[in-house]
């Protein structure tokens, strides 16, 4: 077996007296969709934020392709191929959908120390951005400022922005949260179509989506991974049933 794309080893994070990540060890293989599930407050977002570099762990290591990235700043990790979407969308209120994706394309192309040419007329940015918006189904809304996009459209935009960075591993923090049934199904279909192009670490509460997308599932409870395995393994795991699926009280 080859080394995994992402390896988390003994990750540990506390907030004051609260242990949010408790000696977590986890890996994501190249091209795999690895779902990370767990009840509210289990520490899923905290894991993602340590992977991206927004939070520094108290202990443990993060290896991407065998290289230790634990101390790298956020922007450097992105250039190593780590993309993310946010649970609560993070967008720029006055920018259009197209602006967002074009900015991501621009960032992916390298530095932005170009001071004179009009960025909004730059085909080298706009064309790829247009194509990505089409891919996520937002083309018709390209010129809308994000303030006038619906919640579902903003989630789609988050994804288009992440795709523009051509990640090797995409960290998806609840891409389906707050979506209606139709939108949610569209998002699942979209992610399905992207499967295999890059690896995904998928945090999601929608179990149907998780079971249809994930190759492997890890269950996080109180910052600890209590089980990792296929959908069938997880559904059959007694510890998971007790701790998470809310069964076995008797």
């Amino acid at each position, binding site marked *: 077996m080859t080394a995994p794309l992402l390896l988390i080893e003994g990750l540990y994070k506390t907030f004051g007296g609260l242990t949010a990540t408790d000696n977590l060890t986890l890996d994501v293989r190249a091209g795999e969709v690895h779902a990370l599930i767990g009840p509210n407050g289990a520490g899923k977002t905290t894991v993602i934020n340590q992977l991206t570099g927004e939070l520094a762990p108290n202990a443990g290591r993060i290896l991407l392709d065998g290289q230790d990235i634990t101390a790298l700043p956020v922007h450097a990790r*992105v250039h190593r191929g780590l993309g993310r979407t946010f649970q609560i969308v993070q967008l720029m209120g006055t920018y259009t959908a197209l602006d967002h994706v074009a900015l991501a394309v*621009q960032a992916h192309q390298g530095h932005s120390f170009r001071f*004179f040419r009009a*960025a909004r007329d730059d085909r080298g940015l706009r064309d790829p951005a247009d194509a990505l918006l089409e891919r996520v189904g937002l083309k018709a809304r390209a010129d809308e400022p994000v303030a006038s996009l619906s919640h579902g459209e903003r989630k789609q935009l988050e994804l288009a922005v992440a795709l523009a960075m051509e990640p090797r591993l995409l960290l998806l923090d609840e891409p389906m949260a707050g979506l209606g049934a139709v939108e949610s199904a569209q998002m699942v279909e979209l992610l399905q179509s992207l499967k295999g192009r890059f690896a995904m670490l998928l945090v999601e509460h929608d179990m149907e989506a998780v079971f249809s997308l994930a190759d492997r599932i890890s269950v996080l409870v109180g910052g600890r991974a209590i089980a990792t395995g296929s959908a069938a393994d997880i559904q059959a795991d007694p510890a998971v049933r007790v701790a998470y699926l809310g069964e076995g009280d008797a």
Partner: protein
Amino acid sequence: MHDPFKFSGKALIAIAILIAALVALPFIANAVGLPATTPLATRLLIYAIAAGSLNLVLGFGGMISFGHAAFYGVGGYTVGILFQHVRIGEPLFGFIPGTEQFLIAVPAAILVAGAFALLIGALALRTSGVQFIMITLAFAQMLFFLFVALKRYGGDDGLIIRRRNALFGLNMRDDLTFYFVVLIVTIGFYLLLWRIAGSRFGMVLGAIRQNERRVAALGIAVYRYKLAAFTIAGMGAGLAGGLVANYARFVSPDMLHWTKSGELMVMVILGGAGTLLGPLFGAFALVTLETVLSGWTERWQLFLGPILLLIILYFRGGLSGLFKFIGGGGK
């Protein structure tokens, strides 16, 4: 469509009228027997450059710098000190010859102010929020006291510059000539700001103002872009300082005082932070208000405060917002 840096036909006409009015202004002023208007307008344009440069960090970049006058003062002193060394015929630090050439002294003012901005920015930008405001203020006050202590260059009393810098054999003493020199520089400076605002760099800067977290997640090293903006803004202030040193033929620590930084901030906010021409309107409005109100009453500052407050409260986007409102330009 939502691009604030692409001008509609109407806006272009308005800008053309504005430039025509600025060109005609000194002639009209002379014709109606108000020749003092020309130097006043020169001062306004210089303030418009200083405020425009602050707008790059404050308006476009969302960095609340409360020490911008430091760079304005450093620019002014660069011109003053270089002139002083021509007068005393002795090089600065023993090896930098003095100069009274506009095309050397003013670029030097820009570079020296930029170097200070780079240094101060490199430290201050490691913080954010209130801390950033306080640190920029503290650095500016440090420089203020430095110049107060520099007895060699006049200390508290400031430094008199006997002649304006020389430029292409123009008669720079003449207020009309000097006005046009400043007008050309101002137009050039605003053209530059306009290009920067719409460039790749400008898009990053505007994004940082709105959501720094998102920008970092795009793989952009936020700190470097903020520092670049801070440095460019410092250079702009240095330009304004270099011009005002020529205009007034005098520099003093007052140029670096925190109240001057505050005035520049008011100009930006009053005119409309983050709009291209806002700081220009803000500079015009503030200086005009000060001039008019101080003609009416000694207690003019009592009236200035509420007027500023009203404009800022009722017209989001400052005077630029007001103009759009009058122009019926929707949102």
